Each structure stands twice: as structure tokens, then as C-alpha cells.
């Protein structure tokens, strides 16, 4: 029998190598001296050999999860094992949920009351687990023991740091219920997840409930506002409840529960299901939006000068039409290119969208430079070489200034993007959930709208005749039109200040000044007829752009109404200090990925009524940010019987225990807190 196994490749090693384990397993207690009536965290610190892996709680298509059989003193009980966020391992089409590197399984032992200090607690456990390579599997069994002595429960700092590292690898409770639906298209899981929360590209839903999801099928993730949609193939089993772990980044994730319910189908999947009426309405909106863009401060100056140019005396009918068409072509193509880029980024899994872009301080700073440059051009500091280039192209082409008109159209569409931001955000957002061709039609519609006035001028001589004749006054008009452009730059600088703080704004304005100096130098060279007049601009411009990379986003707290409440970061020491000063304290615990938290903050905490009430009563506000799962905060939450955020605590002045507020807050409830204390006194 053994001889036969020895014949088979790879088997012999697995059979005979029993003396040496493929996963080195150690049992470590966070404290060796637990207090009576307290809890002690116990870790199975596992270190697989290179090429070997251990299994998660749900092993996937094959494999088995670890199993612990405890031998404990009377009254001591062990909680179920807690597993860190696992990894995926696909072998020949079979999905395995595993740990390929060192990992730790944690559990909590509860120590009964009434044990006298110094009494010994021998803890022993037999852990059965499967360890595999891509080729072979070996079941291993480790009998591990440790000896605890009843003491004061103090944790040595080194061990605390180590356990905190392991705790960070555990999934955290998302705290909001998800929904899933199964139909002919497969399974769709909809998870409440704030649009601003970060999600890695390789995010994945690890199911704990067996059979509802086909493990080996790929998962598609889409973000729709404050929801994350995961679409995949359904497993054979139907169920009402789907539990699992959502991995959002390397070694971080959330436990969540989903109930069967309605989840809207993903529209890009169903070109058949989409509604032409909606498309035409959106298209009409886009054309109208494009039309309105013509009078936006960043487009109007460029456009009006071009329009006046077209109204040149003695211009032939065909030439005017040709130029109008070229301009429209430039506008529409640029809109399509920008739209296509956006759709491409989105298909690539990026959370792209106009609104998202405008939250990036670097993008804002870049637009600031661009708008400043255009404003200075209008003000007459220097001339664009682009028209010169285009002019050369135009003179080589029979039919006149079509190249120039095309370039102007492209520029107008490109420059229009900063203006579309908050204004067109919603319409563009709608475009992005439509099938790609419908979305591109919307972008084209935007371009057509933008080009319409110019087309009208080109094709209707009556309008052209009514335009004033070009002359020296145009130069003056151009200088005047630089004013709205400078105003746009001012607005961008303000947004930059909101996003990146005073430092970021100063840096952005400094870069703009630097760039302006380059342009001034260019203008000076241009007036003296020098060749390569743009060299200084290029050099200084590159310096200015480089400076933009130094701009970083200011901490989120500075940007929101939290400043109004004078919130400080939470720490237990800070809390104790404030309470010993006799101040009432409102402490809240939040995370970027917690939708309930964000809703409460917007709708209740950061409201004027609450700010006034808290200011009047000298309430101190502390914020604990659990976005990255700080174990220190985790322990504090646990002490208040919460596995995660949100948690809202009210410490009345001089009161012993905090009042735990409900998970759904209202402004009136918060604003009334200080008064309720007084009533109680």
C-alpha cells in the first residue's frame, strides 16, 4: 500500500513528512496573567512554508477549514475562531480561499469570576487543519498548550502591538445590511458603501454562506453612488441570507450580511432594457446644457472672439459654413474624446466622474494654471501659438481657416470642462450609467449644444450681418473678457483652498504666479519677434506643474462642518481630561466606509442647531476615526459592546457612565442633550 503511494509523484513527500509541519503553528496568549471575570485573546500564529497555504473558514470549492478542540479548566470557555481576511487562489478552475503567508487565527477565552490570583489555568487545544500546495494536500494536527496564571490582566506592550497587528487583519463589521437578488442574469449583491470610501481594484466578496455564489465565477464590482454592486454567477442553493467578507484592500475588509431582496439590474448589461424616451430626454438636456455653456465665463470669451472673426466683412457664404462646420467638428470630437476617456477609466474600474475629478486638488490646481493662462492671453500679455500653427495649416488647405476653426472648437470644448463640473455633474453621471453608445451620444449632444451658436452664425447670414464689424474695439473687448476668466481662476483658487487648505492654496497660487512670469517673458519675446518664444513658458510651466504634486489633500475634518463643532481627535486620555474639567462631552466614532455614520454626520451632527446648542453649553466634541481599524479604538468600542461604528456617546458633566445614543440621530435629539442634563440636576 505505502509502496504504491511511493510510486505516485508527489505523494511520498506528503505521507512521510509528518514529523515536520508545513504550517508552523504557535499558541500565544495576549496576557499570561488574565484577570478573573475577564477575557483573554488567544492567537494561533501560523506560518506556512513557502508554496503551502492554509484555509479560511469557508475553504472554497475544495479543502476544509481548521477545527479547534479545546481542553479548558472548569468555567473557562472559548469563543469561535476569528479569521483574517483571506486571499483567493484559483487552481485549475477550482477556487480556494486561503492564506499563503503568515496569518493568525484569534479567539477569546472567558475567565470565570472568583478565581484567586496565582491559581493556574492550563489551556490545551488540538487544532486540525489542512495545508496544501497547488499539487498536494496534507492534513495536520497540532496539540498546543499554554499555561495562564490568574493575575491582573495586564498586557505586555510588545505583545499588545503584535496582537493589534493581527487584529487589524480581521474583517470589521460593516454595520449596514446588504441586499442580494438572484435571477436569470446571476446573483447581484448590493452593499451600502459610501461613494467616497476607498476600494481596491481587486476587491472581492468572500462568501461564508455555502452554495449561494459560484466560487470560481469572476465577480464584477460597480459603484453606484453610495452602493457597491457585485455581480457574479449564482450557486445552486437558494437562500434568504448571504453572509460573507468583503475585501476592500490588501488585508482589510468587512463582514456583512445580505438578505434576499430587490437589486436593480446593472444597466450596461442590458442594452435591450433601456428606454429610448429617457435617452432622448437626456440628449435634449445635454444639447441645452451645451448651449448654456456658451455663456459660461470660461467659454464665452473664446467663442465671442471667434464669432466676431467669422463675421469678417466680405466673407463668402461657403467659407463661413465651412468654418462653422469645422468648429462644430472640433467641439463634438473633443467632447467625444473626453467622454470616451471617462468611460474607459470607468470600465477599468476607476471611480471616475466629473465630481470625483474635482475633488482631486491636483486637478483643480492644474485647471487654475490653465484658466490663468487663458485669462492672461485675453488680457493681451502674450499670443497663442496654436492659432499660428493652425493658420499655417489653414493656408495650406484650400477652403481657408477650417483648421483654425477646428482647433478653436477643440479648445472651447476642452476649456469648458472646469465649468461643467458642478453644473453638469448630474447629467454626466446619468450618462455614465447608460450603455456606452448612449453615453457617447450624450457627450456628443453636449458638443452639439456648445457648437450651436457658432453654427447659427455660420449658416444664417442675417445673424452674421447683425454682428458688429471687427476693428480695434475687438482688442478692447478681448481685454474686458479676460475679467470673467480671472474670476473663474479666483473661484478655482477658492475650491483649492477648501480642498487642500491654506498651504495648498498658497502653493497653487504660487505656481500660477510662476507660470504667469513665464507667459509674460514669452509675450515680451513675441513682441520682439524672437523665435521659439514659448521656451521660457515651457520651462517655468514645467516647474509650476511640478509644484502641483506637492499639494496634498487637507485632512477631511478641516473641510467640513466639524470645525464648527470644534471637534478634536478622540483618545481616552483626552476624554478623561475633558471630563475632569467638568465639561460635558459628545464622543462619536465614525469611518469613511460607514454609510450610517456619514448620514448621521450630515443630517444631525453637523447642523446649526446642534452647533449652537453645543457652543452655548460648552460641550466638547471628540471624534474617533476608525477608517483604518485602529485596534485602540476597537477596544474602546468593544468596551461599549459595539463590534464597530457608529457609536455615539454622551458624557453629561460630572456623570459617571456615558449615555449610549441611538444609531440613528436627529438634530433635535442632539441639541436637547445639554438641556436634559440640566433638567436632571
Amino acid at each position: 500500500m505505502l509502496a504504491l503511494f511511493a510510486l505516485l509523484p508527489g505523494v511520498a513527500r506528503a505521507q512521510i513528512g509528518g514529523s515536520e509541519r508545513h504550517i508552523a503553528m504557535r499558541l500565544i496568549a495576549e496576557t499570561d496573567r488574565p484577570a478573573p471575570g475577564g477575557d483573554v485573546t488567544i492567537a494561533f500564529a501560523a506560518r506556512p512554508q513557502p508554496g503551502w497555504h492554509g484555509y479560511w473558514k469557508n475553504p472554497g470549492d475544495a479543502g476544509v477549514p481548521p477545527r479547534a478542540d479545546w481542553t479548558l479548566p472548569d468555567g473557562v470557555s472559548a469563543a469561535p475562531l476569528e479569521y483574517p481576511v483571506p486571499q483567493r487562489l484559483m487552481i485549475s478552475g477550482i477556487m480556494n480561499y486561503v492564506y499563503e503567508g503568515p496569518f493568525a487565527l484569534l479567539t477569546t477565552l472567558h475567565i470565570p469570576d472568583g478565581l484567586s490570583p496565582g491559581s493556574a489555568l492550563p489551556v490545551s487545544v488540538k487544532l486540525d487543519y489542512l495545508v496544501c500546495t497547488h499539487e498536494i494536500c496534507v492534513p495536520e494536527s497540532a496539540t498546543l498548550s499554554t499555561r495562564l496564571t490568574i493575575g491582573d490582566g495586564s498586557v505586555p506592550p510588545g505583545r499588545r502591538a503584535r496582537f493589534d497587528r493581527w487584529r487589524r487583519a480581521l474583517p470589521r463589521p460593516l454595520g449596514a445590511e446588504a441586499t442580494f437578488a438572484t435571477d436569470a442574469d446571476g446573483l447581484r449583491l448590493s452593499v451600502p458603501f459610501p461613494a467616497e470610501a476607498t476600494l481596491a481594484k481587486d476587491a472581492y466578496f468572500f462568501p461564508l454562506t455555502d452554495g449561494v455564489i459560484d466560487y470560481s465565477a469572476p465577480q464584477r464590482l460597480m459603484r453606484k453612488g453610495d452602493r457597491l454592486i457585485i455581480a457574479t454567477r449564482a450557486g445552486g442553493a437558494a437562500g434568504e441570507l448571504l453572509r460573507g467578507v468583503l475585501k476592500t484592500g490588501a488585508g482589510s475588509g468587512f463582514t456583512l450580511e445580505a438578505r434576499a431582496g430587490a437589486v436593480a439590474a446593472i444597466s450596461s448589461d442590458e442594452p435591450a432594457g433601456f428606454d429610448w424616451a429617457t435617452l432622448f430626454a437626456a440628449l435634449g438636456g445635454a444639447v441645452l446644457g451645451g448651449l448654456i455653456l456658451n455663456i459660461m465665463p470660461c467659454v464665452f470669451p473664446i467663442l465671442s472672439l471667434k464669432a466676431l472673426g467669422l463675421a469678417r466683412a466680405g466673407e463668402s457664404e461657403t467659407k463661413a459654413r465651412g468654418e462653422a462646420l469645422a468648429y462644430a467638428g472640433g467641439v463634438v470630437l473633443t467632447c467625444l474624446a473626453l467622454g470616451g476617456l471617462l468611460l474607459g477609466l470607468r470600465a477599468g474600474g476607476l471611480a471616475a466622474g466629473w465630481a470625483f475629478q474635482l475633488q482631486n486638488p491636483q486637478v483643480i490646481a492644474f485647471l487654475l494654471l490653465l484658466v490663468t493662462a487663458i485669462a492672461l492671453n485675453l488680457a493681451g500679455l502674450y499670443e497663442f501659438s496654436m492659432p499660428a500653427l493652425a493658420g499655417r495649416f489653414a493656408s495650406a488647405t484650400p477652403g481657408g481657416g477650417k483648421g483654425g476653426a477646428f482647433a478653436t472648437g477643440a479648445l472651447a470644448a476642452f476649456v469648458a470642462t472646469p465649468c461643467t463640473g458642478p453644473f453638469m455633474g448630474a447629467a454626466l453621471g446619468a450618462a455614465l450609467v447608460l450603455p456606452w453608445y448612449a453615453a457617447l451620444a450624450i457627450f456628443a449632444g453636449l458638443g452639439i449644444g456648445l457648437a450651436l451658436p457658432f453654427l447659427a452664425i455660420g449658416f444664417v447670414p442675417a445673424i452674421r450681418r447683425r454682428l458688429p464689424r471687427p476693428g480695434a474695439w475687438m482688442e478692447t473687448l478681448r481685454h474686458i473678457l479676460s475679467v470673467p476668466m480671472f474670476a473663474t481662476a479666483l473661484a478655482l483658487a477658492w475650491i483649492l483652498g477648501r480642498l487642500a487648505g491654506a498651504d495648498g492654496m498658497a502653493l497653487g497660487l504660487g505656481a500660477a504666479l510662476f507660470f504667469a512670469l513665464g507667459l509674460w517673458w514669452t509675450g515680451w519675446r513675441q513682441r520682439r519677434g524672437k523665435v521659439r518664444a514659448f521656451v521660457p513658458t515651457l520651462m517655468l510651466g514645467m516647474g509650476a506643474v511640478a509644484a502641483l504634486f506637492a499639494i496634498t489633500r487637507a485632512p477631511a475634518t478641516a473641510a467640513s462642518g466639524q470645525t464648527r463643532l470644534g471637534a478634536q481627535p478622540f483618545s481616552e486620555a483626552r476624554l478623561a481630561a475633558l471630563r475632569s474639567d467638568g465639561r460635558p462631552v459628545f464622543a462619536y466614532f465614525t469611518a469613511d466606509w460607514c454609510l450610517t455614520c456619514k448620514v448621521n454626520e450630515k443630517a444631525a451632527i453637523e447642523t446649526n442647531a446642534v452647533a449652537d446648542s453645543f457652543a452655548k453649553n460648552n460641550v466638547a466634541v471628540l471624534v474617533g476615526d476608525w477608517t483604518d481599524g485602529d485596534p485602540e479604538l476597537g477596544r474602546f468600542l468593544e468596551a461599549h459592546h459595539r463590534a464597530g461604528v457608529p457609536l455615539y456617546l454622551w458624557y453629561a458633566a460630572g456623570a459617571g457612565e456615558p449615555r449610549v445614543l441611538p444609531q440613528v440621530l436627529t438634530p433635535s435629539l442632539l441639541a436637547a442633550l445639554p438641556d436634559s442634563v440640566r433638567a436632571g440636576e
Partner: protein
Amino acid sequence: MNRTRIFAAATAAVAAFVAGPIAAQQTVGQQARNFRLTDMHGKNVELADYRGKIVVLEWNNPGCPFVQKHYRSGNMQNTQVKAREMGAVWLTINSGAPGKQGNMTGAQAQRFVADQKAKPTDYLLDPKGVVGKAYDAKTTPHLYIIAADGTLVYQGGMDDRPTADPADIDGARNHVIAALRELSAGQPVSVSETRPYGCSVKYAS
């Protein structure tokens, strides 16, 4: 030597499907897909040959500790004997790819059956994994029961104790025996789908 080469050639020729393109995964209550494979003696065997009899399919990899749990304890052999006493046909199938764990030639399979005193009706070789993938066989062991009328009535694990420990066999519910008893009593199979457990099937890709 000569014989081994014949087997190698036979297994390389392999596994042609009698009907249509491959659709992974079989559904309980529906017709189980027909297949043709080369057995350990180099003979072609077709599922349809056994129409009118209950057929048990067992996915096998002698190197897998979960398979060893059931063979070393004699549990698999006992189940095979009982199944055949009840009139069922037992086909053991090996989908291990050449060079991977558990892959066997016909001669090796014959030795395995003899050494283990295994009692399958036949041992079939599926080195390209075609039948394994068509049945969505994921683990070794992974078991399927096909009723006399050709419908699939059970797919899943050997029993309800997903461990590699032979001590867990006593007291476990043997899903195959339970289903076969229900079938011979003319009852529907009460547990028709369970989660299979074991090593992953060592497919080529």
C-alpha cells in the same frame, strides 16, 4: 512495458463526449450527461451502457488524504460492496492530469484497486478532466448517484463529517448508502445535494 505504452496511448486518445458541447455542472432531477472513457484495462466504457441500473460515480485521487481516510478505514470499500449488493454499478473516476498528484496509468489503477481491495465495477481514467469538468467534480472524493432512468439524484460528499480523520467515520451519515437505501425503497432521495469535501481535483488547467 509494452502494456503500459498501450495504456498511455489509450488514455491519450480518451474521453470523447457522445453528445454535444460541454456544459459544466449537472443538476439534480435532470438527465445526467452521458460520457465515454477508457477504463484501467484499456476498454471503452460509456455511461449509457448502464442504462436501467443505478450508477454511482466516485472521483478518486489515491494521493489525497481525504480519499485515504475512506480507503484506509475500509469505509469506501464497504460502501462499494453495499452499493453493488443493492444492484448499483460503481464507477471510480480519476481526473488527475499527467504529472499531477494521483494521476495513474491503467496498470497503476489496477494495482491500486488490488492493493486497496477496492470493489468498484470499473475504474475509469479521465486524464484530460473532460468528464470531471462536465460533472463539475471539485473534490476527491466527490460522489454522484444516477438513477436507473438516467436522472441525477445525488451529488456531494461521502458523508457529513468534512475531516481527514478516520475516527470521524463512525457515527457519520453516509450520504451514498442513505440515498441508495431510499432509492431501493422507492422513496425520493431526502438529501440530494451536499457540500463535497476533500482535496481539489488535480486538473491540467
